[in-house]
């Protein structure tokens, strides 16, 4: 009761806003619950039942009907276990990388093995797996693929870029600054267009790189520029005394960077890094414009089938939900990690501030 008074009815304007919000919720929530759950059609052999209930209840049967297509695109139906296994492999990579216990150099090998396994499973052509050309890859699978490979390659690229931008060698610094500013000055869409339309024009006749690979490279280059700036932010937060202490012990530049500077800088940079990962994960949906079949495209295409046309609301709610689950997980993880690590670094900074005062 006192909580109510303190937080919702502390003053007249507050009370009015609270009442207004309650009234809005009462108008919006019950109809939505009716539509989304109580009157919804969860499964149906075809779209007739859904058509009959249109406007009253959601047609989740549409999702049920199309879920294979939404998950795996036009990948051969009887081979769906392969992209399914790939999704599991990628989720396992995320899970292992999330545990601090595994933050060892060996994690890199684990990632290489995981990515290689995904490549073999998707393409096939070896170990008795049928070859599947990447034109047929699609759905949630492709979204995860673009995001995972994108970050896996962009991150290692971002670290030398960030270090290079702080380098004392003018050529190295110039290149890194130029690269980062050039890429950041261009929207991802135009990079994707360039990769899909312009790049083939510049390649010598007979040389082709397939569309997916071009898009993936464009996304890696794009993400690397942003991640580099995030990493640089972390590097800047390291007090100069740390570098001097490492120097005074006789550590060379690379040892100092790898053992003293980067481990601290990356920890400080975790929240903005995760923020960039989240943005990048959602940006993969832009491949829609160059005709790649990611999650959003496959949902859009599902809606083009005449029998199921018109259930766009359900389709896009579902798509949002999928994106939300991934992004929210990342966000929660980052918050938890920040709390855990504050025991070491932040506390150290605070103790320092207290001493100086």
């Amino acid at each position, binding site marked *: 009761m006192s909580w109510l008074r303190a937080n919702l009815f502390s003053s007249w304007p507050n009370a009015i806003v609270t009442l207004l919000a309650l009234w809005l919720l009462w108008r919006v929530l019950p109809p939505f619950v009716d539509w989304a759950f109580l009157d919804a059609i969860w499964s149906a052999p075809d779209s007739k039942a859904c058509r009959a209930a249109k406007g009253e209840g959601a047609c989740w049967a549409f999702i049920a009907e199309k879920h294979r297509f939404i998950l795996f695109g036009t990948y051969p139906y009887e081979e769906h276990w392969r992209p399914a296994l790939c999704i599991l492999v990628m989720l396992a990579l995320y899970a292992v990388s999330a545990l601090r216990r595994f933050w060892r150099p060996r994690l890199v090998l684990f990632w290489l093995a995981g990515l290689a396994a995904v490549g073999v499973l998707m393409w096939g052509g070896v170990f008795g797996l049928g070859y599947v050309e990447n034109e047929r890859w699609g759905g949630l699978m492709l979204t995860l693929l673009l995001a995972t490979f994108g970050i896996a390659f962009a991150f290692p690229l971002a670290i030398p870029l960030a270090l290079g931008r702080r380098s004392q060698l003018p050529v190295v610094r110039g290149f890194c600054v130029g690269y980062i500013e050039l890429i950041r000055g261009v929207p991802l869409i135009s990079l994707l267009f360039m990769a899909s339309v312009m790049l083939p024009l510049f390649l010598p006749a007979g040389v082709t790189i397939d569309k997916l690979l071009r898009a993936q490279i464009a996304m890696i280059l794009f993400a690397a520029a942003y991640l580099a700036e995030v990493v640089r932010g972390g590097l800047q937060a390291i*007090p100069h*005394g*740390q570098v*001097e*202490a*490492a*120097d*005074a*012990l*006789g*550590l*060379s530049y690379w*040892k100092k960077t790898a*053992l*003293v500077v980067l*481990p*601290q800088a990356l*920890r400080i940079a975790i929240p903005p890094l995760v923020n960039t990962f989240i943005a990048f994960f959602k940006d993969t949906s832009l491949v829609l414009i160059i005709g790649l079949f990611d999650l959003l495209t496959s949902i859009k295409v599902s809606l083009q089938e005449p029998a199921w046309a018109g259930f766009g609301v359900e389709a896009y709610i579902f798509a949002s939900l999928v994106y939300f689950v991934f992004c929210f997980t990342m966000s929660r993880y980052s918050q938890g990690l920040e709390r855990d690590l504050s*025991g*070491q*670094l932040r*506390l*150290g900074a605070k*103790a*320092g501030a207290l*001493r*100086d005062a």
Partner: protein
Amino acid sequence: MPDQFIIELQAVNKWFGAFQALRNIDLKVARGEKIVVCGPSGSGKSTMIRVINRLEAHQSGRVLVDGTELTGDLRAIETIRSEVGMVFQQFNLFPHLTALENLTLAPIWVRRMPRREAEALALQLLERVRIPEQAHKYPAQLSGGQQQRVAIARALAMRPKIMLFDEPTSALDPEMIKEVLDVMVELAREGMTMVVVTHEMGFARTVADRVCFMDAGEIVETAPPAQFFGAPRTGRAKLFLSQILGH
């Protein structure tokens, strides 16, 4: 007998932009000698000892450490640095590593010492600075005095020939100063060559072979402590002593 001196500064000058931080510094330190450097703030004390392991580069004159002249040669600098330990005012421990890992880092990666051996050495050194029980704690979990003792042990882990101290007790609470000075006195008794920038005049009296008084980038006066404290020759030294001993 040039080899008698482990550190030699000859006519060293250093500018920060238009500001001259060091003016014609000449200093020779013999093996095993303990020098205390004092002087008002901004007098170039820290800059001078930071030139000795080239955390600051000098612009003219010569700096010789253990027979090697410090120039732009990176290899030589790293070799010298691995043989000159340094302790900072702000400790500068690596906060992402435990006390033990702070000590083993350089021996493992610079000296290529096997991990087990480095850890044994580290534990022995932590024992020597009287905090073996803190080996597995992170710097943030230690008091200032403990952190500074870990920092001394970290420098000693490289088995340096020279130890440089840059105001090692200035950032400490008064009750922690003694525990750090005790460790330094002990180190001095064991014969380590030490150059110490400090305002702890008690320490200077007991430990120093010579006190080196600096002002405005110059070495104004160098004398054994008894003479320096008893009968300073220059007006500037008298003024300085009256200011720090006057209260």
